[in-house]
């Protein structure tokens, strides 16, 4: 069959649906059938699934002209989705094609939700098209004889690649691809990504920076001109609008008319707890929505989530309060309006959410921005600009993630074993490990076999063994079993499932929340008030309660930062406070009462000024700095400055930061004049000082947590399987100390520091920020009390610590609190 005949089949199908293929879809078909690899840049719901499922099926038709009568069994293509919740949707669109075109191809799903029975069947005979997650793909690599499964696979599509890029799951994917490329000789690799700042790099990471695949690849962009309108919800009384906070409930009533005026409204919140609270409060104030409103977040059980998604499609819901769980996939045509509650911390994400409304090509998208505190209106104003300029962020890919590599190598050792000489070149071709040295590689191999670098007498370390012919292999069944369970744990805290006593799964919560509960406590979860009964077998037993409560589970989640571009937009908006009202955005204009308050004791800086405020409260001496550079840069600058001050005299700080500035809080007063006179904002010795400051804070320690879990140093147990491995559980904090004291040159321990540097501190941006400050005039305001700008920062409880004092001196000034009487 010629290529034209094949296109004809596809176009016919589109005609039958009364559709017309988009140019980007046609381009993708063509490139795929020409044997190219590529990256497709297309937003959710644009028809991207048809852009790639079609050529996959057409390719099969081409190779098997008698496809209607004769069927060749075995895996032909893999579709990777980062969220298993999306797999059903993808399967349905694939089945439409395979059936309508009269092939006998089968489509199957393999995720953590797939039953053991089905998995076993799949292992015997794989479906022709397999939809799976990065973790489940790794698990397949941990299967004996996996090369036979993948041998005839012709395509792998990594959907929502932007979500994986810049995470360790992305690294896991890179490694998986490096192996599949060798096993399946005719594999085409395709990625699908929403718009991000570094699309070209995204393609490099997917295909390998120096690979033939990259050379033989294309980038296809779906140019769907979509108009996005951002409307800020502006508080009617700015005088009483709070200066801090993150819930935004103050403006709840403003949302009601928006909900009433549209068919379906999605309300995006930033955290699951915020989602719970909003849902609860709207129903409390407006019981008339009962039955017409729902909630959707990642910890709610799958059935409920699917029900909600279906209900949105049926237009049977008026409003859905949700989190990023509805960011991806799932086409919801009927959504008319989207409300973003609180700063979205990312232009790409904001655009994606906006795109949820008017979800048809050509339709206008409307998104409302609801500020949770006054200063967020500046962010709202900056977002307007960002949307106009499409100032989307980069996703920074990881380099040299030794933890993920160790996990991967163990995976290979568990299945068929591996020969280092065969695997090393594959790994070197990936983006993540392109600069890995031979020494580092040797270290990793030693670590797998010996558990460190040298053989000790009496050591019984057991993991990977080297067989006579040099093959690295896991022969111990216990090690293999534990490793398979560990593969899914690239993310997360220990999660406990929440169930009714008589059964009935409600969702999952983090252990840290539930450990503070005692019997009889009531908490809100999944929109219900639940009474805590007990924890048994890693399950939380609850019953319904009518008692009121304000306890809502919190989930730790990555805190995102403003990008360089967005920070600049934010500063410019803020500087416009000094302009004539005519030249201000409506948001900035509405903030004038707040700016007036700020100006009583301090200033609203202009582009030439760098503001420092100091004041004392019962908490101690506050020293606040306002670079307006985003929280990560502030975290870095805060610890840098804290460290440099601590060299002048012994002092202890607690550091807080947000997207506007950072605070050094101490029990002693710092003379800011000394900071200025000693030129402590200098960029000289930046790297050394930053490194040293890192040693005195806790940042690396927190990074180590994930590293320890991924590399298999900490065993998390099998919460969902009800299997406890208490005798092997240890905590990563303890492990961090043990490594620091006894094996500081361990690559995994070192990795915690490199990661903090590359992914947390953004040294490059810090340098630019310092350069900017160097040409600004430093304005130091000694205030009598907290200013409006300072409020969101000083009330932040999440803090870093930094000290140059002797422990003994600190202990002498500290006390232990007596237990409160109950």
């Amino acid at each position, binding site marked *: 069959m010629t290529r034209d005949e094949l296109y004809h089949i596809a176009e016919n199908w589109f005609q039958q649906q009364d559709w017309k293929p988009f140019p980007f879809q046609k381009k993708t078909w063509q490139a795929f059938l020409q044997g190219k690899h590529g990256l497709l840049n297309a937003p959710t719901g644009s028809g991207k699934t048809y852009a790639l499922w079609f050529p996959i099926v057409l390719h099969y038709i081409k190779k098997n002209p008698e496809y209607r009568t004769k069927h060749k069994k075995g895996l032909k293509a893999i579709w990777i989705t980062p969220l298993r919740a999306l797999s059903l949707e993808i399967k349905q669109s694939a089945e439409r094609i395979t059936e309508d075109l009269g092939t006998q191809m089968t489509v199957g799903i393999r995720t953590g939700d797939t039953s053991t029975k089905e998995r076993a069947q799949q292992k015997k005979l794989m479906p022709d098209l397999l939809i799976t997650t990065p973790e489940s793909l790794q698990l397949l690599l941990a299967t004996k004889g996996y090369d036979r499964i993948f041998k005839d696979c012709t395509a792998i599509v990594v959907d929502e690649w932007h979500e994986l890029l810049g995470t360790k799951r992305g690294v896991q994917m890179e490694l998986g691809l490096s192996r599949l490329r060798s096993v399946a000789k005719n594999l085409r690799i395709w990625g699908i990504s929403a718009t991000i700042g570094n699309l070209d790099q995204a393609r490099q990471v997917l295909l390998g920076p120096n690979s033939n695949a990259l050379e033989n690849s294309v980038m296809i962009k779906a140019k769907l001109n979509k108009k996005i309108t951002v409307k800020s919800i502006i508080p009617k009384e700015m005088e009483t609008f709070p200066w*801090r906070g993150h819930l935004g409930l103050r403006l709840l009533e403003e949302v009601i008319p928006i909900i009433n005026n549209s068919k379906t409204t999605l309300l995006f919140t930033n955290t699951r707890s915020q989602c719970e609270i909003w849902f609860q409060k709207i129903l409390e104030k407006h019981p008339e929505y009962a039955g017409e409103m729902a909630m959707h977040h990642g910890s709610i059980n799958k059935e409920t989530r699917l029900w909600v998604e279906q209900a949105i499609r049926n237009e049977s819901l008026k409003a859905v309060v949700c989190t990023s769980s509805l960011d991806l996939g799932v086409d919801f045509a009927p959504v008319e309006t989207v409300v973003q509650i609180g700063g979205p911390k990312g232009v790409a994400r904001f655009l994606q959410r906006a795109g949820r409304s008017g979800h048809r090509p050509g339709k206008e998208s409307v998104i409302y921005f609801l500020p949770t505190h006054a200063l967020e209106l500046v962010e709202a104003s900056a977002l307007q600009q960002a949307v106009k300029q499409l100032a989307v962020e980069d996703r920074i890919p990881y380099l040299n993630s030794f933890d993920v590599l160790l996990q991967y190598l163990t995976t290979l050792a568990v299945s068929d074993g591996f020969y280092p000489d065969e695997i090393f070149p594959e790994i070197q071709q990936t983006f993540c490990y392109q600069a890995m040295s031979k020494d580092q590689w040797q270290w990793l191999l030693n*670590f797998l076999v010996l*558990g*460190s670098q040298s053989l000790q007498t*009496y*050591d*019984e*370390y*057991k*993991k990977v063994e080297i067989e006579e012919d040099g093959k690295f292999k896991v022969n*111990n069944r*216990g*090690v293999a079993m*534990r*490793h398979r369970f560990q593969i899914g744990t690239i993310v997360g805290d220990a999660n406990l499932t929440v169930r009714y006593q008589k059964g009935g799964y409600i969702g999952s919560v983090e252990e840290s929340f539930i450990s503070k509960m005692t019997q009889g406590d009531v908490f809100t979860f999944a929109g219900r008030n639940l009474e805590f009964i007990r924890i048994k077998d890693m399950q939380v037993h609850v019953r319904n309660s009518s008692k009121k409560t304000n306890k809502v589970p919190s989930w730790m989640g990555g805190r995102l930062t403003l990008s360089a571009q967005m920070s600049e937009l934010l500063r410019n908006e803020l500087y416009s406070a000094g302009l004539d009202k005519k030249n201000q955005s409506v948001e900035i204009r509405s903030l004038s009462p707040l700016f007036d308050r700020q100006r009583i004791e301090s200033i609203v800086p202009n582009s030439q000024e760098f503001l420092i405020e100091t004041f004392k*409260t*019962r*908490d*101690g*001496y506050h020293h606040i700095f306002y670079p307006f550079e985003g929280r990560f840069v502030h975290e870095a600058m805060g610890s840098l400055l804290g460290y440099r001050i601590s060299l002048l005299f012994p002092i*202890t*700080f*607690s550091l807080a930061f947000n997207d506007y500035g950072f605070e050094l*809080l101490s*029990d*002693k007063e710092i003379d800011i004049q000394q900071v200025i006179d000693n030129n402590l904002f200098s960029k000289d010795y930046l790297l050394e000082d930053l490194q040293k400051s890192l040693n005195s804070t806790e940042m690396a320690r927190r990074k180590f947590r994930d590293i320890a879990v991924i590399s*298999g*140093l*900490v*065993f998390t147990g099998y919460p969902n399987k009800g299997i406890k491995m208490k*005798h*092997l559980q*240890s905590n990563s*904090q*303890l*492990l961090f100390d*043990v490594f620091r*004291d*006894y*094996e500081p040159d*361990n690559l995994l321990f070192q990795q915690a520091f490199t990661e903090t540097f590359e992914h947390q501190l953004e040294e490059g941006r810090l340098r630019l920020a310092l350069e900017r400050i160097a040409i600004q005039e430093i304005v130091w305001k000694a205030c009598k009390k*907290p200013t409006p700008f300072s*409020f969101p920062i*000083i*009330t932040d409880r999440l*803090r870093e*610590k930094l000290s140059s004092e002797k*422990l*003994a001196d*600190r*202990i*002498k*000034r*500290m*006390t*232990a*609190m*007596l*237990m*409160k009487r109950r």
Partner: protein
Amino acid sequence: MNTQSTLIRNQTIIFHPSGTLFWEEKSMLLISDVHLGKVSHFRKFGAAVPWNAITRNFELMDEAINFFSPEEVVFLGDLFHSSLNSEWKLFEQWMATVISKVILVAGNHDIISPLKYENLGIDVLSEMISDEFLLTHHPEERDGYFNFSGHIHPAIRLRGEGRQSLRLPCFFKSTNQMILPAFGTFTGSHILEPKHDNEVYAITEDAVFKIELSIPNRGRHFS
């Protein structure tokens, strides 16, 4: 080394930064929760905890013993974390260098046969009574006795102005009870909240500090 001492029922008790406690009149050194064998246990199951942490345990025990030169060394339980593994060999070698009489008050982790200990000249007891002092692994209240114990791995959270806080392992004393901190290099700790009748001695690398207790402020200032 900066120690602290106190009188309990007219007996002199000295706290050592290593987390050991010396009863001067009896020349008795108390050590609790060493958890030997834990590192090896983890390693045997494929978790590469640094091997050097093992040797450090023995060095630290030597330091404490050399400092006090006790006639008796009493382990207050959880001396060995797991079933028998290769660390036992190292323990045997270490025992050969110890001149003091050694006693083990067994704890929940001590599942190795007492015979193995007795072969090394160690008496294994479920509890030990000396005058009006009761030595156990689990904290216990018994009329007329003062109890020395371990098991809890106590630590204390210190707070200071400027939202400072510190967490330190400690000796935790109530009217009739003293809980020792965990000695081992690979053991965690558990924060205890003191009441009025408690005394707390926190340990750092080279010193012991008696901790001042204070009444918490109520409420937050900004909310």
